[in-house]
């Protein structure tokens, strides 16, 4: 089973990213569970998306430890369990503040690229998750194509992330 937690703030597309991973996994014949935690605000509040993917139906989707953390805003650090061994990927600009100093973090320039290329940060990060094997890249692309808006831009962003 793969477990991923994506953390950020409202407006970054965190919940949509988690949803897309689950949808892509379902398209590829796997089972997925995705649930989010957020406040009442539309933008600016902390958002956490928890994703589990497995070959069989998932026993319990509610957990507090994950194999992979993707941190896209410094607000997210309080929901990262640093006691357990995990792969932690974080944005080198917007997640640097308040980051834990005692653990290994894989810093990536998602936000920088998003600004330069005027592309959505979440799609660039999802492309990168496909690169490291969290999700099959073809299913992710198919998920974007069948359900997403701005398909061309999103695929472009996925490709950039996948080739990071």
């Amino acid at each position, binding site marked *: 089973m793969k477990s991923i937690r994506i953390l950020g703030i409202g407006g970054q597309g965190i919940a949509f990213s988690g*949803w897309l991973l*689950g*949808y892509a*996994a*379902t*398209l590829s014949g*796997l*089972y*997925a*569970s*995705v*649930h*989010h*935690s*957020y*406040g*009442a605000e539309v933008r600016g509040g902390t958002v956490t998306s928890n994703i589990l993917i497995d070959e069989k*139906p*998932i*026993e*319990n*989707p*509610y*957990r*507090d*430890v994950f194999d992979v953390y993707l941190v896209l805003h410094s607000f997210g650090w309080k929901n990262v369990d640093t006691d357990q061994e995990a792969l932690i990927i974080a944005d080198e600009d917007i997640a640097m503040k308040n980051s834990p100093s005692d653990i290994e973090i894989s810093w990536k320039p998602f936000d920088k690229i998003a600004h330069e290329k005027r592309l959505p940060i979440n799609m660039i990060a999802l492309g990168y998750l496909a690169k490291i094997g969290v999700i099959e890249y073809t299913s992710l692309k198919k998920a974007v194509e069948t359900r997403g808006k701005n398909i061309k831009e999103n695929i472009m962003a996925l490709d950039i992330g996948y080739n990071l």
Partner: protein
Amino acid sequence: MSEKYFWSGNIAVAEGALRAGVTFYAGYPITPSSDLMEYMARELPKRGGVFIQGEDELSSINMVIGASIAGAKSMTATSGPGYSLMQEALGLAVMLEVPLVVVDVTRLGPSTGQATKSGQGDLMQARWGRHGDQYTVVYTASTPEEAYIMAIKSFNTSEKLRVPVTFIIDELTAHLWETVRVPDNIEVVDRRLTDAKTRYFDSDNPLEAPPMPMLGKGLNILYTSSTHDGFGYRKTQDPEVHRRLVERLKEKVIGNTSEVFEYEIIGDPDGGDVGIVAFGSVARVAKETKTILEREGIKTSVLNLLTLWPMDYELLRSFTENMNVVIVPEMNLGQLVYDIYQVRGRDSVYPYNKIGGGEPIYPRELAGFIKEVVGR
């Protein structure tokens, strides 16, 4: 062969309702049920039904009652504050024997509480929210897949017994997106109708609901919330008519407990070190907790309740009596646990309660609590 979808719990409920044949929905938006309503607003008209957004919860539930009397399988969805507003009308639906389904997507109360956070504090309200002696059916689900099945079961029971059914789904399950397998064959019950002048509000067999009168056939039907005889005539002074009516309304539900009761047992139902009784999202946490405990040699069984009322106390008794300890985790301050006290007393029964913040009960946390209890 079943088909697979990626649905949230709320969408699964809506799809289940559509499969069951719902043709009327009236509701008023409230977090965390609004996405169910939005889905119905989009899908129901496409599939031949009628969707209305009421000006509030009172008008919505009353429209649902009216539509059901007119012949439509009808429903609404709301959350705690809206569900409170609907109680008066639900009492009316009990008295008039109107089939309908109310989905209560539960958040944290009392009052408006924490709107986006999950809770299970509406259990007792769903059972007892109306005044007078009244009995309804309360279902729940712990996964979107169960939610689909139980939504259909809600309509089936509602139509069969002519009783309003409350479907409780906690926010964590309602907003959980999951791969859902939809079975090809599933039973759908349609209501028994009559176009004859007969007793629409009485039945010689109290376990069987009377048929509903068809509208538009020239039958002059009286629907009154006051005590009435089999033809619907008000009888507010006759003690025998009242007794017969209200006892039948009770027996119709309680007498059919085994018929309406749904549950799932994971593990050995006949005994062990630990028995966990739970519902909704917490039941899934209980399943993983079982896995954790068994790795450490603690034999554990889980009873996942899909029916919250009427309660099958015989089943509860047989599940709990041979467990060394019984754990009742709930996302409230202790409501379901009273059913366990009733069948087993308080000896070695441990509630585990967590509220606020919308945090689930985590498996590590529950396993830690249970290990501490078992070690005592």
